[in-house]
């Protein structure tokens, strides 16, 4: 089985408050911030490995995990990070983040799927910079494949013939079974110790969160193949349908008062704020 994992390079989300808006308000700059794989996509890499692994943490995959990104040449580092976790190969589609939208990225990924013929696409539910949450759904539509978004749990039979996905939705969890090939987007809890059950490594629990790359993994990643191609090579229409015309800082709340006691707080909430 082959799993394709699309990954976006983003500015360190733990320091997202340090991104700056350019003086002409047309760009967001993340100078000085470390570039990282989008966390939800990192979870997708972990998910793909867990689906294919023959034992918890064994690193032996019953198939291939291919990581693809659409971004600049400088995304090599983030692709290698995913390879160091245990993915097998990388693909970089050259593109400028400011000249991409969900339509262009989904079309590029559809072309890569055409070439690679994966059995499954697993990706993050959204990139934490653009926060659009559109690409997995658009990709599924372009391919005519079923989709299972916001996966918090995935169970696959040992023969990997389908996937039963528990989706994290408003008010509870929706369970769907998709035939493969399919597109799955993952949410936070997929990397919990029991987020993936492949019925091979069954009954054992994973560590919480995506795995760290081992030193051996990092060394091996350096030798793993990474193909490069351009949007033009893939024949993707690069006309933006969604343009960001300007950026502004959102309105901020200001700090209020510190109270000393619960009595004082309750009095203020009742008499001043009138919310009790």
């Amino acid at each position, binding site marked *: 089985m082959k799993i394709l994992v699309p990954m976006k390079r983003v500015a360190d989300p733990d320091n*997202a408050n340090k991104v700056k808006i350019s003086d002409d308000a047309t760009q967001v700059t993340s100078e000085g911030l470390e570039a990282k794989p989008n966390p939800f996509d990192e979870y997708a890499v972990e998910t793909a490995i867990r689906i294919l692994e023959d034992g918890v943490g064994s690193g032996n995959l019953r198939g291939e995990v291919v990581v693809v990104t659409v971004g600049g040449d400088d995304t090599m580092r983030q692709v290698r990070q995913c390879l160091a976790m245990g993915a097998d190969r990388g693909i970089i589609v050259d593109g400028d983040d400011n000249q991409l939208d969900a339509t262009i990225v989904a079309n590029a990924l559809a072309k890569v799927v055409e070439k690679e013929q994966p059995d499954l696409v697993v990706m993050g*539910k959204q990139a934490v910079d653009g926060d659009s949450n559109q690409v997995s759904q658009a990709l599924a539509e372009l391919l005519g494949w079923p989709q299972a978004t916001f996966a918090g749990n995935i169970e696959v039979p040992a023969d990997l013939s389908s996937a039963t996905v528990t989706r994290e939705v408003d008010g509870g969890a929706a369970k769907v079974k998709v035939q493969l090939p399919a597109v799955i987007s993952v949410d936070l809890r997929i990397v919990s110790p029991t987020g993936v059950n492949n019925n091979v490594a069954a009954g054992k629990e994973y560590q919480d969160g995506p795995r760290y790359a081992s030193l051996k993994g990092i060394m091996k990643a350096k030798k793993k193949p990474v193909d490069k191609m351009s949007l033009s090579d893939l024949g993707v229409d690069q006309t933006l349908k969604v343009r960001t015309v300007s950026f502004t800082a959102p309105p901020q709340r200001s700090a209020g008062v510190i109270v000393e006691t619960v009595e004082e707080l309750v009095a203020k909430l009742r008499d001043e704020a009138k919310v009790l």
Partner: protein
Amino acid sequence: MSNVLVVVHIADNEVKKAVLCTAAFAKTAAGNLGGSYDILAIGADLSSAKDALTTLGAQKVLLAQGADMGDALAERLVPVIEQVVKAGDYKMVVSPASSIAKDVLPRFACRMGAGMASEVVALSFDGGKFTYVRPMYAGNVNGAVQIDSDIEVVTIRPTEFEAIEPGAASSAVEDVALPAPEAVCGKVEFLGFEKSVSSRPDLAEAAVVASGGRGVKSKENFKLIEDLADAMGGAVGASRAAVDSGFIHNDFQVGQTGKIVAPDLYIAVGISGALQHVAGMKSSKVVVAINKDEEAPIFQIADYGIVADLFKVVPELTAEIKKIRG
């Protein structure tokens, strides 16, 4: 192309406030375009919801009713919306940013070759063109986006728009003749919906929310937050750190990548105030922070703060509130 279509999925015949907020958004947009707005309601049973929907100022209320509509699979709903949009004169298709809309609308937008703006918080119209403001970078930046396609697809954060005032039942009601399921529907099977067991109000629409973070320390301790919420008749929320630590289900996560809430009163307990979290609750009217770390960023955005041990203060607060509310 001067009309607006509101697409809403309705469960249990309940017309939520989010629908009223989206209707208000559509009214503004249709006014800009010099057109009108319709509501496409999708659900297994809309028998009693339809009357409420006719009071929201829409020209038409279109009902897509059927057993499989309730499952809300994107593969099934996209051709239904497509059929309605192609039969109308719509420039914009808009939904509240529910998990169903987030799942379905991007697939629909792709089907139509349309651009989409997600989780919009403000709308403007100038020179015949809409500009949508939407939070990005975990809420640290607002981006103003424009869409260059015949149809514009939008999800909105309902908490950022005033609900429309229901009036007289004025909309014409039409049933949508459902198109046959497409081949892809044979590749996905809906197995069921497991409702979070809660007697509390819906987090996204509650007037009061008590939220717990990493400081709550354990799943068992979350009872403190639940007791506080119950004393106020409110909902329970959580920070991403609390969800990550396994204290509570992801469904309760408030933040840019979780639920967006805007209650009258938001009480953040043991929550440091990461921007990711703040992005999901900063539109709350009154924010209270309880944290033993006086340097916690949550105090920078709270109207009232107590620097203290939550295990001491929260039970006290719960007791005081119980006294007031009798």
